[in-house]
């Protein structure tokens, strides 16, 4: 029997001017979530149960961009998405376009366990939620005053730019002044920090699982789907590892980031940390992202190519670490 390991994240790419209080709150939340997961692992919960449990906690807390506290669409509404994958048989479940489901990750799990499909979205997903009797609330529940303010800033920042497709050759901002602000998705990080949440776990039986949940990109077009619900992009788990990503969704999708970690472990024989480092270095080009990962042998690793990532990790031998900056 192996050893368990767990990692959580609250998003890659952090505003360098994030107030200390907020940093402290983030670390406390990550710690609380780690402890929740650790407790469950000590009670022999399976990896897939643990990742769901932990991500539910992250969704419920309004601090990060998932569930309550989700980023807003251009219409000022919330559209949430999530995915979960059970590495032991590579079963998966994903949802997008949720507007009333209190815990998207749990609906993703139900798609995996209780439907003949792997991915349900928008009205169909909402309908399935009602059939399954999951907890639903008004869309307003998910909207926080802070995000309403952020949306306003995002729209203002947006009016400066006419086309901010992220070209692989790099992005030239249209000169907001001598110093160019730190950017995610081509726009100021203070507004566009992803703060997607995720959790990866390997349990004592060596089973890996991964889960990711988000409200998506601030000021996104209604109907926009990012990397978080896409198996292979934002989430992946198989016999050798579990991975959850965060950052610029479009970069993660085109880099099939989560799958890459497993692919280099499997096909190049790299151990976990090297695989993570390789992927972050080689698969992102100009894109900014981060990820957390565990291996079936009880290791945990993370990597990011931006300035910071909210993260926490712990292993059975007592190691525990929570961090934000590089």
């Amino acid at each position, binding site marked *: 029997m192996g050893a368990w390991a767990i990692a959580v994240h609250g998003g890659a790419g952090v505003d360098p001017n994030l107030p200390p209080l907020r940093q402290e709150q983030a670390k406390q939340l990550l710690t609380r979530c780690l402890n929740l997961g650790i407790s469950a692992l000590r009670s022999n919960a399976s990896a897939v149960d643990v990742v769901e449990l932990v991500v539910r906690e992250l969704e419920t807390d309004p601090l990060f961009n998932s569930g309550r506290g989700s980023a807003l669409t251009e219409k000022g509404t919330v559209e949430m998405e999530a995915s979960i994958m059970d590495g032991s048989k590579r079963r998966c479940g994903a949802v997008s376009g949720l507007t009333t489901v209190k815990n998207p990750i749990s609906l993703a799990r139900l798609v995996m366990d209780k439907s003949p499909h792997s991915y349900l979205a928008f009205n169909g997903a909402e309908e399935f939620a009602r059939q399954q009797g999951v907890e639903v609330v008004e869309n307003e529940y998910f909207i926080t005053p802070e995000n309403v303010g952020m949306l306003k800033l995002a729209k203002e920042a947006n009016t400066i730019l006419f086309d901010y497709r992220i070209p692989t050759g790099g992005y030239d901002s249209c000169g907001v002044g001598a110093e160019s602000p730190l950017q995610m998705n081509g726009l100021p990080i203070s507004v566009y920090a992803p703060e997607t949440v995720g959790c990866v776990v390997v349990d004592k039986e060596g089973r890996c699982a991964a889960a990711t949940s988000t409200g998506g990109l601030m000021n996104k*077009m209604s109907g*926009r789907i990012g990397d978080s619900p896409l198996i292979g992009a934002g989430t992946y788990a198989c016999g050798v590892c579990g991975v959850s990503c965060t950052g610029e969704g479009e970069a993660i999708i*085109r880099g099939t980031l989560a799958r890459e970690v497993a692919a280099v472990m499997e096909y190049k024989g790299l151990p976990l940390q090297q695989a993570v480092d390789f992927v972050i270095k080689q698969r992102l080009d100009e894109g900014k992202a981060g990820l957390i990962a565990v291996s079936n042998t009880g290791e945990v690793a993370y990597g990011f190519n931006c300035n910071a990532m909210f993260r926490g990790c712990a292993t059975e031998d007592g190691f525990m670490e929570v961090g934000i900056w590089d």
Partner: protein
Amino acid sequence: MGWAIALHGGAGDIPLSLPPERRQPREEALRHCLQIGVEALKAKLPPLDVVERVVRELENIPQFNAGKGSVLTSKGTVEMEASIMDGTTMNCGAVSGLTTVVNAVSLARLVMEKTPHIYLAFDGAEEFARQQGVETLDSTHFITAENIERLKQAIEANRVQIDYTQPIQNDTKKETAIGNGDSQIGTVGCVAVDGNGNLASATSTGGLVNKMVGRIGDTPVIGAGTYADARCAVSATGKGEAIIRGTVARDVAALMEFKGLSLEEAATCVVHERTPKGTVGLVAVSAKGEVTMPFNTTGMFRACATEDGYSEISIWPAPKFE
């Protein structure tokens, strides 16, 4: 090196006893689409334009499960999805849940080129379609009598079909066999490479017969149903849930990249060793102008051509030469 193109009209349990009146229109359609693609490549159109053009053509043909002729959801409606990827830039676009857009693949391309996003779905995608002024029609346009009948059978059998398949072997609790031998249609896709090694891939579908409203399959998921990079372009078809969990399209490219396998070795490995029998087929081309079209189902409607003059239009494993 030289250009190459491959396209498919779906993999599944296509019975060898398929009557001529069902087989010939599809073969003719494949021939027609292949010709369109070949002419476009000869005219030196970029592969991205070529795959879009060919898939548009396939979407318009009602015998295939994409665009007009899409299979129906459990509510008798149509929900179409597609994706497209440019191997040179790694840009991609995807759409899901379309109900009125005549050519889903073209909307996917517009998402890629005209928005800061990669993937738009359902109402948001339909809204974007209107903003872009693409051709839309009332959703009844896409519904064919054949598919109404298919849905009826599936509902009676209380099953979700891969629109045509009697699974050869099935170990998941979710998919069950349809014993009616109806195996004539499937997802469509096209991959192409030009003489300079530029690659592109596109895939389009109506999904599964009797699927739950809102169900998304592998087709719009980059890395699952569609993938293109500097080495190869891949478009997959078959059982969506299996293609998603196997990240099939990306896996072909990953094997080439990380294990140094050739296109054919990589594609064969993914289809015959890494995905359950009866679930998948794919078409792929490499930067060097090679083509491969493996499948682990009874058959796959497919066609390909290379600059050196080779061409093929086939359904079952033994290729038929023109």
